[in-house]
């Protein structure tokens, strides 16, 4: 079993989920509450990774972060390194790829918070930010948890994008899904099955635990 690859995938998924919660939550709040006329354009951009084939997305990301692109050149100037074939590059790609998986559930749960409660909070003198932090976020915790779980799971199983920007370096960009693919390609079906079963079991356990945990939370603070 390639523990190095499994550990890499877990790390990548944890970091991706953390970044997505930090970046995706404000974006989701803006999408849920903004009345801007062209908001639908932003919504469409956020949802694009759902539609584009991962290899296409991965190819564009490779071009966009390569040393010849403005972003890649800037990164090279600051750090002296290059983004493709690095963990940071993979992280950036994963964040883009899983963006809708965080933003959509979070935005829809923000939007479904009772408007009366929000306005009551304003009337009692709480600022917009305090209202968001103390009313909207706690009432949306299920949506936020769903977004986090989906992003984590989506990154664990990510393949096409990693294939396109990763370059298959052991311990840096060779994630577990790439390992399984390589094993299948090398006709080592026994090892591929073993790794796949492990991934299946791990994913199931993570999901089952999180849903079980959510249920307990739900029992203590009934939401609807």
């Amino acid at each position, binding site marked *: 079993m390639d523990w190095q690859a499994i550990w890499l995938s877990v790390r990548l998924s944890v970091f991706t989920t953390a970044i997505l919660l930090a970046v995706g939550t404000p974006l989701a709040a803006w999408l849920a509450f903004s009345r801007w006329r062209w908001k639908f354009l932003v919504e469409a951009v956020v949802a694009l990774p759902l539609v584009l084939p991962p290899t296409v997305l991965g190819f564009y990301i490779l071009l966009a972060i390569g040393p010849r692109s403005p972003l890649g050149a800037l990164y090279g100037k600051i750090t002296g390194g290059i983004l493709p*074939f690095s963990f940071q590059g993979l992280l950036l790609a994963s964040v883009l790829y899983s963006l809708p998986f965080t933003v959509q559930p979070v935005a829809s749960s923000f939007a479904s918070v009772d408007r009366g409660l929000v306005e009551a909070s304003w009337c009692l003198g709480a600022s917009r930010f305090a209202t968001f932090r103390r009313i909207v976020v706690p009432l949306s915790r299920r949506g936020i948890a769903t977004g986090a779980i989906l992003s984590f799971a989506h990154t664990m199983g990510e393949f096409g994008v990693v294939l396109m920007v990763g370059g298959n370096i052991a311990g840096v960009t060779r994630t577990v899904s790439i390992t399984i693919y390589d094993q299948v*390609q090398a006709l080592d079906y026994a090892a591929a099955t073993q790794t796949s079963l492990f991934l299946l079991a791990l994913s199931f356990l993570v999901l089952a635990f999180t849903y079980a945990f959510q249920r307990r939370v739900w029992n203590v603070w009934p939401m609807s």
Partner: protein
Amino acid sequence: MIVARFAAVAGMVALYSACGHPSAPRKLSIAAAADLQFALADGARQFHQQHPQTELAIDYGSSGNFYAQIRNGAPFDLFLSADVQYARNLAPDAVFIYAAGRIAVWVPVSSKLDPATALRDPSVRRIAIANPQHAPYGRAAEAALRSMGLYESVEKKLVLGENISQTLQFIQSGAADTGIVALSLALAPTVRAQGRYWEVPVSAYPKIEQGGVILKDSLAAREFREWLLGPSGRSLLKQFGFSLPGE
């Protein structure tokens, strides 16, 4: 996977004019290694001219994937593998060797590197090769690096493409500075003008023998095999950067 279907107008005309005679066009479906893409694009046209009654449907892709698909009942008539071993596993006695792959160091036109010395250049940060674990060109590239005494010094710079086209993509996009690709790719019409290459001496790596096998016997399949192994097929393969069996 790219599907090239040669159900040309000529074929339709032949079908109509043949209404009186019972000679419907024969279909031949071929699973071909991705490195044959450019050679066979021309080849299919030539073959169709010589054998207008046969319609070719060619799927290009990874030989390992085709192997797994054929094992599980994919309905191909003919399999042209990039690695003779896959063909041998399917039918040890019926394999025919049609070509051998060659490799080359490739740099984009915009690069300052000289392809002949690029692998030794200290300014190079990333070198792309195909994955030696399963891609025959990757195995050859690794063997060539070892026999040229470069493997230890470049090992940390290697990035692995899933197949030889993706390896080229890594270099084209600038993400890798240089790399080792199939000569057939470096010579491909769409790639030729985009870069410079240096062919790795064939003595530096074990021969990448490409083998084919007829999966479903038919007259059309045998005709195609004869054509590929005959003078037209040979000159075409040579022109597109392959060595020929017996040379």
